[in-house]
């Protein structure tokens, strides 16, 4: 079997994707230069500068990209599983010989050069996902196959969590995006989305507000499904009244009465059980489903509290800081606050290259790695942040388009995997700098300083470009 690609190295390569990639890398380089420019180093081109080191990494990345393009695309299909195994072994090895940086034992050190295996494990997992799900016999609606996918994701996730690098691990959760595209039952997606939003909401709102919100949601969906308004309002009113009565009664009977929250919890759960029995007897399916969701949510929320209390204090702080609950400028919130200040002070047009005071004087932590977006925000203003976000959006949408035009599921799935990984990284990284997401310590693709990350993302992206460039049919199992 030979590649049917003829002509030069670049024929069939998607020019737009490469252009977006190159622009992002370029802006990233300028940002690193601005963030780390040190006037005390005498030579502008000295390799003591971070930006000069990054020049080297960009050059290496270019060589790697060309290499990736040179390799025949069927090898990617062929090596998917071995790569996955090697990735897992690498991850495992960090547990033994890894170097701890910022609390996560996720690095392997080669002299002065540190590699984060998880970056490469992502590529391997994406390849393995594509391989598994493009098997001819694979059916997404079959439970056994879903379990296989779950296992494929769960094993690396487990190791990453063991490394205490949960942030990077959550990237794998973004593969839900791919699963949805490949036809995962949307009712299976819904609980995941609900869990995620409930989890975030549980920190943003007080328990009572959350409970009231859930009751409101339940009533709303009941009204939507049954079309009846009055009885549902009476139902909510009697819930509240019942809770008050319970609160007052317990207050009278015992020295310490129940709080309104506890009373409402008890009354609503009791009512839910009653309603469930009623719905069962008269076979009202929708009531049963909404009730199940309600009870499930309540128990999930109660367990979130438990889980949260089991977390390490610094993790708790980070989550709380993200939720805006802890507001101590010198504590956990300090970084996010400084980051917002730096971005906010850029205004519409920014302060200009090398003119940012917040970045230059070091008010923003990790300003050339995880918080590189701040440099863009401060020095180039909204113009810069808008441009860079637009570039990322275009890149991701382009990847999805590339996926769609693949004739083989392998290529499509892989492209979607890359798109979802990039989307997750941009959302979480940019989100944390502007206070929308908790601080998780994951890099901004192609922009954050560091060879390991740049090279890994380059490989990830260029495999997709390589697959797209080929028009060859290779699905061995599918003729």
């Amino acid at each position, binding site marked *: 079997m030979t590649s049917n690609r003829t002509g030069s190295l670049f024929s069939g390569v998607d020019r737009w994707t490469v252009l977006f990639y190159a622009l992002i890398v370029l802006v990233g380089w300028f940002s690193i230069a601005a963030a780390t420019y040190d006037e005390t180093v005498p030579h502008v081109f000295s390799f003591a500068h971070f930006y000069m080191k990054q020049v080297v990494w960009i050059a290496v990345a270019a060589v790697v990209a060309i290499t990736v393009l040179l390799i025949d695309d069927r090898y990617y299909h062929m090596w998917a599983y071995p790569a996955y195994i090697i990735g897992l072994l690498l991850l495992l090895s960090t547990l033994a010989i890894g170097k701890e940086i910022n609390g996560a034992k996720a690095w392997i050190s080669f002299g002065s050069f540190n590699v984060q295996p998880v970056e490469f494990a992502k590529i391997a997992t994406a390849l393995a996902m594509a391989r598994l799900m493009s098997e001819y016999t694979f059916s997404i609606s079959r439970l056994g196959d879903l379990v296989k996918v779950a296992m494929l994701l769960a094993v690396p996730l487990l190791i990453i969590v063991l490394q205490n690098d949960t942030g990077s691990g959550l990237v794998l959760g973004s593969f839900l995006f791919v699963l949805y595209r490949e036809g995962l039952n949307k009712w299976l997606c819904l609980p995941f989305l609900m869990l995620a939003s409930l989890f975030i909401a549980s920190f943003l709102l007080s328990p009572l507000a959350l409970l009231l919100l859930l009751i409101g949601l339940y009533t709303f969906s009941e009204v939507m499904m049954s079309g009846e308004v009055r009885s549902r309002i009476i139902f909510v009113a009697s819930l509240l009244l019942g809770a008050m009565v319970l609160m007052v009664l317990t207050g009278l009977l015992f020295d310490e009465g129940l709080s309104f929250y506890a009373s409402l919890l008890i009354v609503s759960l009791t009512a839910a059980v009653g309603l469930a029995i009623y719905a069962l007897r008269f076979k009202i399916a929708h009531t049963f489903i909404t009730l199940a969701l309600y009870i499930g949510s309540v128990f999930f929320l109660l367990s979130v509290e438990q889980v949260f209390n089991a977390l390490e204090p610094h993790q708790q702080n980070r989550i709380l800081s993200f939720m805006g609950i802890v507001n101590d400028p010198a504590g956990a919130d300090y970084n996010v606050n400084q980051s917002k200040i730096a971005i906010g002070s850029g205004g519409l047009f920014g302060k200009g290259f090398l003119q940012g005071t917040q970045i230059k004087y070091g008010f923003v932590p990790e300003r050339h790695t995880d918080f590189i977006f701040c440099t863009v925000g401060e020095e180039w203003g*909204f113009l810069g942040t808008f441009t860079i976000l637009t570039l990322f959006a275009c890149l991701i949408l382009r990847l999805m388009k590339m996926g769609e035009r693949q004739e083989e599921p392998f290529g499509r799935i892989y492209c979607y995997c890359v798109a979802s990984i990039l989307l997750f990284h941009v959302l979480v990284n940019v989100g944390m700098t*502007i206070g929308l997401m908790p601080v998780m310590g994951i890099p901004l693709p192609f922009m954050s300083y560091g060879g390991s990350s740049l090279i890994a993302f380059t490989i990830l992206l260029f495999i997709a470009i390589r697959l797209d460039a080929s028009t060859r049919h290779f699905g061995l199992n599918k003729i």
Partner: protein
Amino acid sequence: MIDRNEGFVRMRTLQLIVLLIFTMLIGRVAYIQFFNADYKRGAARNVMRVDVQYPPRGEIFDRRGEYLAQSRECYDLMVVYRDMDKEGFDTMRLCQILDMQPRRLKQRLNDARLYPRAPQRVANYVSKEEKLRLDAEGFRGFYTVSRTVRHYPLHVGGNLLGHLSEVSQSYLDRHPEYSKGDYAGIGGLESAYEVELRGKKGVKIMERDPRGAIKGSYMDGLYDSLPESGRYLTSTIDARLQRLGEELMAGKVGAAVAIEPSTGEILMMVSSPTFDPEELVGRERGNNYIRHLNNKRNPMFNRAVKGKYPPGSTFKLVQGLIGLQEGVLKPSDLHPCHGGYKIGRGVACHAHASPADLRFAIATSCNAYFCYVFRDILENPKYGSIKKGYEVWYDYVKSFGFGRQLESDFLDENRGYVPTREFYDRVYRNSWNSLTVLSLSIGQGELGCTPLQMANLAAIIANRGYYYIPHIVKAVEGADSLDRRFYEKQYTKVDPKHFEPIVEGMWQGVNVGGTSTQARLEGYDVCGKTGTAQNPRGKDHSTFLSFAPKDNPKIAISVYVENGGFGASAALPIASLLEELYLTDTIRRPELLKRIKDMKIYYPAYDK
């Protein structure tokens, strides 16, 4: 595997999700970058250290150009807590340089820890020498800010000038243009002319890194501004007179005010006991302040504008003038007096020739005479009733500046007190007559006047019927004139033509024969009226009201000595000596000067 159509729908859904996520991110970034200014302020707070540059406060001169208050260089020592040396520093050395107790330094640093980024003051009144030593030591996180402090070369006029104090929280709430650590004038001239004196603060904005190291000037000094000095004031005070007044009043409680009748300028204003304004400057300020506060004679209370006293016999002048204007009294009217006024509860009087006409009654200060006059005013059939008559009398008294603020430039003038008709209606349940309030006729009873109001009465009589609102500032640097009200003649309700017999009586009292003969100054036609006010707190108050010369008066003066006895025994000699100095530039009665300076009055009411 799903069919193509379903796949297409799902692709569209995912594209929508991607777009939604990026819209959310861009929206949030847009909010942070141009809809919420907090972050820009935050950046400024991070990187900028705003050094306030304090202007020197305007200086105050007396009417002859002598310094009453000067501004002298000094420094504040500031600290930015988080910039301090984390390993600690030689606190003992710092305390030694500043002559400060280590406990106090520790307390200040603890306070500073609450606001680690904000500059906090550690010490004030740091001298130039101490500043240089501090600079040489170079304590990290500490720096000095240039200020000025007051210096009073003549050590006079404590209450008159007021003093400077660091602004309190309540002051800050009322005056948002000030900030913590600023000084503002309290009392007297300093507070009345605060706006003119304070000048304008400047700023110098410096850039710093997170460790507090200064990186240079922010935006090359674009937003920096230079301080503007406060304007200087020329006061109407005559420093010589003021000093002599304070010396003469020493050992006595009371007040003395002198006014130039032709302008309303206050030449001297003594409130006794007084304090040396220099005592409220520098590190001993706190102790001195407490000491004065605890002094039962209350030296920080400006009696000259805030004290309220019964005017006593000096008020007879007003009584006579009202009678003349109302037509119920002619200068030639005779009234008998044999030891007093015998109707009703009556009023006693000293022995003198009887009957007396108006001039003689003033010269000899006959009580009975003015009881007749007062009753004639109130019982004037023209008004139908005594109460109506009283209201007419009340309006006259008001027009002399009694019972209301004179609107001088002192902000805390007392109104004094003239009882209203309603007051008596209430107290006597509507049943009262001219005999009930008879003590008003000789300036006793409920009447209360400030020494400034009494001095103003002297000026009114000196001017024969009008006054200029008394004021203490002659000129403000850069201003062509003072407030308009100080240039307008304020007429009383008594026609100027009625003043001559009163002036004549005052002149006779000094120069022919009467209660005030001691006040005679050869060649200067002094006019005067003594007062001896009964009071419930002990010995009579001694007061004297005078102006000189009779024609073209140069000075009008009122002296009030609490529990000084007869008007002629304490107040008169003080006033006379002051007039002598002002009119002749010298004092030719050294024995009298010495006796009065050494005179100490015993005050059981204060010194308990």
